[in-house]
């Protein structure tokens, strides 16, 4: 297991803070959880705790940004999005201000705190806001690169981080080719493509290995940028493999699955299965138990892949039969 993405976030903030004195950090009494306290120890004059007042935190971040500072406003994913939706929309996105909003402990990975603290709709909310960029790194090395890219990007960004240690996927050098908006192909396979984000990337790679043992060749693509979505990558995967599975620690409504569905339907419709939380609040439990119960496990990705492959084959057979009927010639 590698480090957690939030630890990498803190490391990245300090590194950037040393280079750039316009970087400031805000938190809402959760510095221990978001790890921004590490930045506070190094740069106390550039850290502002706003207390349990997230809406005010977003507004203050906006005000700081109008004066040329680059604020990273951090809290738990639920409070960084749902709780402050209007503030983000009006004071940040519509105003066009260079504010970075960072949500940690997202998804079922949040675990034992339960439904009130599990962000399952944060991507949905932020995707609907114009001018917003959404970045979801999948491991610690990628997080280091992502935070740097987020700092350099001019405009509002939502950076979605997890909670626990995550398997290392990228070596330091690989992570350097991180570009906002450019999905990364981690594995090629001609039978179907698994498009994943965040913690589900590692699980998708494990699922692809499992599928390979069954003779199914699955590609895996890391969609670290949810907005703007790399539509070309979606289209190319659909054209080459003809079957898509999406996987996210998030609701199937409004997140990666929905974004991919939108792109597929408008460009290259192919069978799709969305792996994610199926429009329900979850509950308290360990991250592992919750993943199993709510359909986010490696097994769930494998099952979805086999299902979508089956539909692809059915469609191919039906296509052949139709062609035979029409022309009297077997395809």
């Amino acid at each position: 297991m590698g480090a957690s993405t939030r630890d990498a976030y803190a490391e990245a903030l300090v590194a950037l803070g040393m280079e750039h004195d316009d970087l400031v950090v805000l938190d809402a009494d959760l510095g221990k959880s978001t790890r921004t306290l590490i930045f506070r120890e190094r740069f106390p004059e550039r850290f502002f705790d706003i207390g349990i007042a997230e809406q005010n935190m977003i507004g203050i971040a906006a005000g700081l940004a109008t004066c040329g500072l680059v604020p990273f406003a951090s809290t738990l994913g639920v409070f960084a999005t749902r709780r402050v939706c209007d503030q983000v929309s009006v004071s940040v996105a519509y105003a066009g201000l260079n504010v970075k909003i960072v949500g940690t402990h997202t998804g079922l990975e949040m675990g034992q705190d339960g439904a009130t603290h599990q962000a399952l709709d944060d991507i949905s909310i932020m995707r609907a806001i114009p001018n917003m960029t959404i970045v979801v790194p999948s491991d610690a090395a990628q997080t280091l690169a992502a935070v740097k890219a987020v700092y350099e990007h001019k405009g509002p960004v939502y950076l979605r981080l997890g909670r626990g240690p995550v398997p290392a996927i990228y070596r330091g050098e690989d992570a350097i080719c991180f570009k906002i908006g450019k999905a990364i192909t981690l594995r090629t396979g001609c039978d179907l493509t698994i498009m994943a984000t965040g913690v589900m990337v590692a699980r998708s790679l494990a699922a692809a290995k499992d599928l390979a043992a069954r003779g199914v060749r699955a590609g895996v693509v890391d969609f670290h940028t949810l907005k703007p979505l790399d539509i070309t990558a979606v289209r190319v995967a659909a054209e080459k493999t003809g079957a898509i599975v999406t996987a996210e620690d998030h609701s199937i409504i409004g997140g990666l699955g929905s974004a991919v569905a939108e792109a597929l339907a408008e460009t290259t419709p192919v069978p799709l299965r969305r792996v994610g939380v199926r429009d329900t609040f979850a509950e308290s439990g360990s991250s592992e138990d919750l993943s199993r119960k709510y359909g986010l496990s490696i097994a769930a990705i494998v099952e979805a892949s086999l299902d979508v492959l089956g539909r692809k084959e059915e469609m191919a057979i039906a296509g052949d039969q139709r062609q035979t009927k029409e022309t009297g010639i077997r395809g």
Partner: protein
Amino acid sequence: MVSVILEGIDSMDVQQVGDRFQEDLSLAELREKARAVRRHIVKMLGACQSGHPGGSFSCVEILVALYFAILRIKPDTPRWEERDRFVLSKGHAAPALYAVLAEREYFPVSTLMTLRQLDSILQGHPSMKATPGVDMTTGSLGQGISAAVGMALAGKLLRKSFRVYALLGDGEFQSGQVWEAVMAAAHYRLDNLTLIVDYNKLQIDGPVKEVMNIEPLGDKLIAFNWAVSTTDGHDFDALTSVFREPIVPARPKAVIALTVKGKGCSFMENRVEYHGAVLSEDMVASALGELT
């Protein structure tokens, strides 16, 4: 922790309030400006047939005092880094702000008649991207004050001497975010921040007291560790005096400006129904008749 962070900043020379780069206007000239601004507002609202007359009229003197006697600004350099900032947190009073910005030569007076039309630089609520001179996008009540706190915080961090002013409606104090911002301003000792309350006692559904009582407002702000003054919001002598009072170190400043909603048009004054109202041709003519 706060005193460690701000050590050294309290003792810096804070630019005295009132330094400015235009000639002093006399009180009579300021009143003349206010009349001109009201005439603009009437014509603008008449032309676009939507908007907020009552709350635009109640803050005319406050805005004229700020933009013609108090703020350190450069209309030909709207984003001048050292400028004093102004946030219209009660964003629906945009017509008043636009009229003042035009009179102050941020853009031509002729632009005013494009208010709320498609492609106009004058949006229904202030947009910092669209309009030169608008320091913050507002319109959703309770948010502008937070941004103003952020600007003041930036001023302290960057060791700048600009002041930040925010204008709120009294009804706006029903919003929780306002109190979050008020709390934070005192916590961070933002004595470079002035909050002005357009205290006209009315909102949409009725008088503020009846809809959701906010009293005692001054006492609450004092309890939140602000320095609070009250003034006649239509008297230029009183307004300029209160804005020029010496700053209380480490305390943000609140000015409760006693105002009349719809001030300047006898048929609108103190009437709830003119918060958001369409001005007919007759009303426009009648109002302009009173504003000669």
